[in-house]
């Protein structure tokens, strides 16, 4: 009996050893991608350093971005609203989701996300990894759930391969999905516009109109649309026509602070040519209509931005200045970024 026990325990030990061997991670090669950070850009969001883009992570994230099975009836992907050729917007006043349901707001462009501190018009999201879940579950967007998505793709050979290449195993988890989508978005850096080339002395020059527009911009716009991102990332009430939807309160929806009521994040002007219509729910069909509105006078509000409050609720602009400003704004278009 003792002998049997001894043999058994040796066998058991051996087995345990074997098991250890199997558990050893399969070696895989998924190099980190170095982000090409343009000169003059602000510091990276801390989350980027905790979730650095990798070769296969980005590939997987991009595949997810295009994945229509993210929506309940497999018709809507992230890219359905965030269309690359429109600087990742959709040209609708308000986003159109599953079954043509209309969202609360205008689809924001996706660019230079790695450098942003706030995401969404109201800045609710501070880490990009926390963003994908929101459209997935929202009734007007994809109307699905993360387990539903994992269920749909779990037998997909291509995904299994990519997970193995990215993480060393084929486990499809919610966090991995969120992380890889964010990794892909971190790589979407736009700094290849005519403006950038001029700033980098790469031979380009402004036309006369663009140069005049740049002067007007510096005088009348730059205090908000500042930094290399062309937004100071502040939240301001600029007296735009109000969204009648009862769910809208701008930044105040998040902060609960009266002074944030109907304040929205200052949008970047990069690639603005491609992202019409404008405003938090697409109030303005063209850049000209935005400038006309500022020129004619905005709605008053208790918390109207001081820049407007102290100037009779106006940014006065002549017809010529508007034309020049639009010419200048078009120098912020990055045709390579949007693939045109």
């Amino acid at each position, binding site marked *: 009996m003792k002998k049997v026990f001894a043999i058994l325990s040796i066998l058991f030990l051996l087995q345990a050893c074997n098991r250890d061997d199997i558990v050893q991670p399969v070696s895989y090669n998924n190099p980190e991608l170095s982000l090409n950070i343009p000169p003059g850009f602000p510091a990276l969001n801390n989350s980027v350093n905790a979730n650095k883009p990798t070769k296969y992570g980005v590939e997987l994230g991009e595949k997810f971005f295009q994945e229509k099975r993210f929506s309940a009836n497999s018709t809507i992907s992230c890219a359905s609203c965030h269309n690359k050729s429109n600087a990742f917007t959709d040209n609708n006043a308000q986003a159109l989701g599953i079954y043509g349901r209309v969202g609360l707001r205008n689809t924001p462009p996706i660019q230079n996300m790695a450098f942003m501190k706030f995401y969404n018009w109201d800045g609710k999201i501070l880490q990009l990894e926390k963003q994908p879940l929101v459209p997935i*579950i929202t009734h007007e967007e994809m109307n699905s759930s993360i387990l539903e998505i994992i269920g749909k793709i779990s037998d997909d050979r291509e995904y299994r391969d990519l997970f193995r290449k990215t993480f060393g195993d084929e486990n499809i988890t919610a966090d991995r999905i969120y992380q890889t989508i964010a990794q892909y978005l971190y790589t979407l850096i736009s700094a290849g516009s005519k403006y950038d080339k001029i700033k980098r002395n790469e031979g380009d020059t402004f036309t006369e109109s663009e140069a005049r527009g740049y002067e007007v911009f510096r005088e009348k716009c730059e205090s908000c649309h500042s930094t290399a991102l062309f937004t100071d990332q502040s939240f301001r009430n600029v007296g735009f026509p109000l969204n009648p939807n*009862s769910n809208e309160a701008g930044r105040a*929806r998040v902060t609960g602070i009266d002074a944030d009521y*109907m304040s929205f994040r200052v949008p970047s002007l990069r690639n603005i040519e491609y992202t019409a219509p404008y405003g938090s729910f697409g109030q303005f069909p063209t850049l000209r209509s935005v400038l006309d509105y500022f020129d004619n006078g905005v709605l008053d509000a208790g918390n109207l931005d001081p820049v407007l409050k102290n100037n009779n609720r106006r940014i006065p602009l002549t017809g010529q200045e508007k034309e020049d400003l639009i010419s200048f704004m078009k120098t912020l278009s990055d045709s390579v970024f949007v693939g045109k």
Partner: protein
Amino acid sequence: MKNLKKYLLVSVVLSALISCSKDDKDPVANNVTLHFNNTFKSNTIVLGNAASTTATTNTSAEGQVHHFSELKYVISNIRLIKADGTEIPYNINDLDKGATVVNQAKSETLDYTLSNIPSGEYKQIKFGLGVKQELNTLDQVKFPTFYANAGANETEMMWEWGAGYRFTKLEGFYDSDNKEMSIHTGSTIEGEEGAYTQGVDAYRDITLNLTGNAVVGRNAPKITIKADFDKLLSGKTNTIKLTTGTGMNDNATPNIHTAVQMTKFVDNLGGDGSSDITGMFSIDGVEN
């Protein structure tokens, strides 16, 4: 073989004896049922649509008549406090096992049974109205049951844009012309406890002293918790007048989903977290 049979017999008899003796003593644990009585003052609420003649109506301190068509809230983070002060947490970090949506339209949700509560005398109950920050992430993987329950079409206790749960959802009508009222609460807080970076914390911790000790053991006590929704508009912290419109201070429907007006309702329902730790809740009675 004979021996084996003998042993078997002995062990059966022994185990029978042991289980008998157990029956004689108090069990080491038993259930505690929480019954939620949702009222306007002392009247249990009957829901109804705009034209309803049977719905329970209430008049606020500001003189506004109102009634509800929908009444839901989340209870979680339940703790029972023994007479000696020992705190017995009930699955406080597991929404599937320790949180529930109370829905006035579904009578089975008005009773929530806490199982396997250690025997003893209990003098106090603590619970959360809503979901504490660290669990409020709509994590379907971790808590599939609560996620499914809260997200069900007839429940709608998810706040998608806030990536968290709704803590209360009240729909109804006010004033003689039955204007719509729609009051939702939930957290928008970001960051770690003690170092919040932005947003409003709508979670409220409630502490209620029991009217008499709940004695868990041979008996499975039932604690009736009254939630007096009169407090919604006429609370200890705020007296609220409902107004309909699109202005910053209109609170009946527009903007009420927003944090600005929401906090006043949250403080009335769940207390302000400092001077008021009961909000609309009180103990109706304890049955042992």
